[in-house]
């Protein structure tokens, strides 16, 4: 998983680049590019979150909060102080990282489910703050007028352009994460994944490594949030609620939490299910999500990414 073979990479890159052209050509698929923009934004979050879950074995039930911190930091700084969106984006990442340290450090020293509970509470508190601090965030009505982003003088003001921006960043984050997993911190993480006691015996600081992973995942979520804010030009607190945090968990579980590809696959699938294919179920899509989550947890513990390996094992018998 950690090696990057050339041919598959080129094929996937080509698919990403060509997709908007395909979507524009087929009438029923015209709006799919828009859906893929959201899928890409979700991917940015799930890439970080999946190594938290798959490697560090921790679960965050409040990642929507970091997504929101990125979105609101970008929104507030670009509308009230009018700084450059990219600077605001970096500010958002720093804010999210700081908060992640504050929340993660005490929780990750403990075992098991404490981070889950801490992030659950934290996510709800942050959402309440978004709703209550009306002067800063616009309250439940939301905040509008968020400007568009610019890249080297080019205004990113169409769905197509935003698509390429988002997916370029997703590719970058993906490659960066793979490289990170090969760095000393990454090796420590893989050691922890294999066996915590053994890793501890080798002198690896387990808590510290987990905190680093948590902060990293928060930073990526914040990046995604900033992009979301600049794409929608409008944000309100209901996009950053507990249900979105759970949707993220569903994306990773469905795709497979042990590989990065799983995160990407799960994000794209859930984006399409949620924004397009489950319209038939209307509001009962929530039951479908629960069913998917349960079925995957019981029958496909490695998610869809684990299916080829499962099939291989079956066929060998």
């Amino acid at each position, binding site marked *: 998983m950690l090696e990057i073979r050339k041919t598959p990479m080129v094929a996937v890159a080509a698919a990403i680049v060509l997709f908007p052209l395909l979507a524009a050509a087929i009438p029923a698929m015209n709006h799919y590019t828009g859906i893929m923009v959201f899928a890409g934004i979700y991917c940015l979050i799930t890439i970080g979150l999946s190594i938290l879950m798959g490697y560090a074995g921790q679960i965050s039930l409040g990642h929507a909060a970091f997504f929101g911190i990125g979105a609101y930091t970008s929104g507030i700084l670009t509308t009230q102080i009018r700084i450059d969106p990219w600077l605001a984006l970096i500010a958002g990442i720093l804010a999210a990282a700081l908060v992640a340290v504050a929340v993660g450090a005490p*929780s990750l020293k403990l075992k098991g489910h404490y981070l889950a*509970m801490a992030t659950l*509470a934290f996510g709800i508190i942050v959402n309440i703050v978004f709703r209550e601090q009306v002067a800063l965030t616009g309250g439940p009505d939301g905040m509008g007028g968020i400007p568009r982003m610019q890249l080297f003088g080019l205004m990113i003001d169409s769905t197509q352009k935003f698509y390429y921006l988002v997916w370029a960043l997703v590719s970058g984050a993906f490659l960066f994460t793979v490289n990170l997993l090969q760095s000393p911190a990454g090796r420590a993480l893989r050691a922890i994944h294999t066996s915590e006691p053994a890793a501890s015996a080798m002198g690896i600081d387990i808590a510290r490594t987990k905190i680093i992973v948590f902060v990293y995942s928060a930073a990526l979520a914040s990046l995604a949030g900033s992009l979301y804010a600049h794409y929608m030009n409008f944000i309100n607190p209901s996009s950053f609620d507990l249900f979105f945090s759970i949707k993220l968990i569903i994306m990773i579980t469905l795709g497979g939490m042990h590989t990065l590809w799983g995160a990407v696959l799960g994000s794209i699938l859930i984006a399409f299910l949620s924004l397009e294919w489950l319209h038939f179920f209307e509001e009962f899509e929530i*039951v479908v999500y629960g069913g998917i989550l349960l079925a995957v*947890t019981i029958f496909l*513990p490695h998610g869809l990414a684990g299916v080829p390996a499962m099939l291989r094992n079956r066929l060998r018998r």
Partner: protein
Amino acid sequence: MDKITFASQLLQYTVTGITIGSVYAMVAIGFNIIYNVTEIINLAQGEFVMLGGLVMVFLQVSLGLPVVIAFAGTVLIVTLVGLVLDRLAIRPIRQPSVLTLIIATIAASIMIKGAAMLIWGKDPFDLPAFSGRTPILVGGATIQPQYLWVVGFLVVTVIGLTLFFNKSIVGKAMSACSENADAARLVGINVQHMVLLSFALSAAIGAVAGLTMTPIALMEYDRGAMLAVKGFGAAILGGLGSFPGAICGGLILGLIESLGAGLLSSGYKDAYALVVLLAVLFFRPSGILGNLEVTRFKRF
């Protein structure tokens, strides 16, 4: 209307706080029962409370059954749901880890909530109060009779559970499981049955909490999540796994919420319980009455 004194106001906040605190305490007790035997945090606990209210509405209001029969029926039905939860969502997991179990209970809670939405729709429902709505005036504060029912059932539950765990064979077997599952297995206790029983008990207690609080606060399909989070906060505050802790934790949490909303800002009311939860996790994870031993993962 006479001017209400500050003392009366405080008394009112206290009354409300104890009432809602009793509900949190019951949810916390439910958490603890399952946690003690299996070390699972059942995030679907709040859904049992929600179902308790809604099923009672169905039995008492839609079908017109007398209160006592509807009560028994509700507890039975929700207990069944608890059993199904264990059998279909928890037991089938082949490689249980803390992560997958949390996810499984989340999945279960989503499905129960969705089913409730399908069956009852999204409107809130009301139940007639058990003994009428004439308020009792004490020291300038008004106490609804239903408040007393809620606290009363908490007391009954606690007494019942204490007797069960200390005096009955089955209860003692469950306590044994929570101490050491392997040893319990060795002396012939069927651990899987104990797990099933713990879910059943939790569901039953949750149901009672739900049907006693509905005449006060109505009930709708999505109430479960917030109740679960706050109930969990109460459990952690009191010390995860400890029953006296659950009661203390629940009551304290209810009081903090009520006093906070009354004396500080009411916009942040929900946040009070959560901030307490975070504070406990950060500074004293073992809670007020829990022990400092960091938990091991139990096999079952």
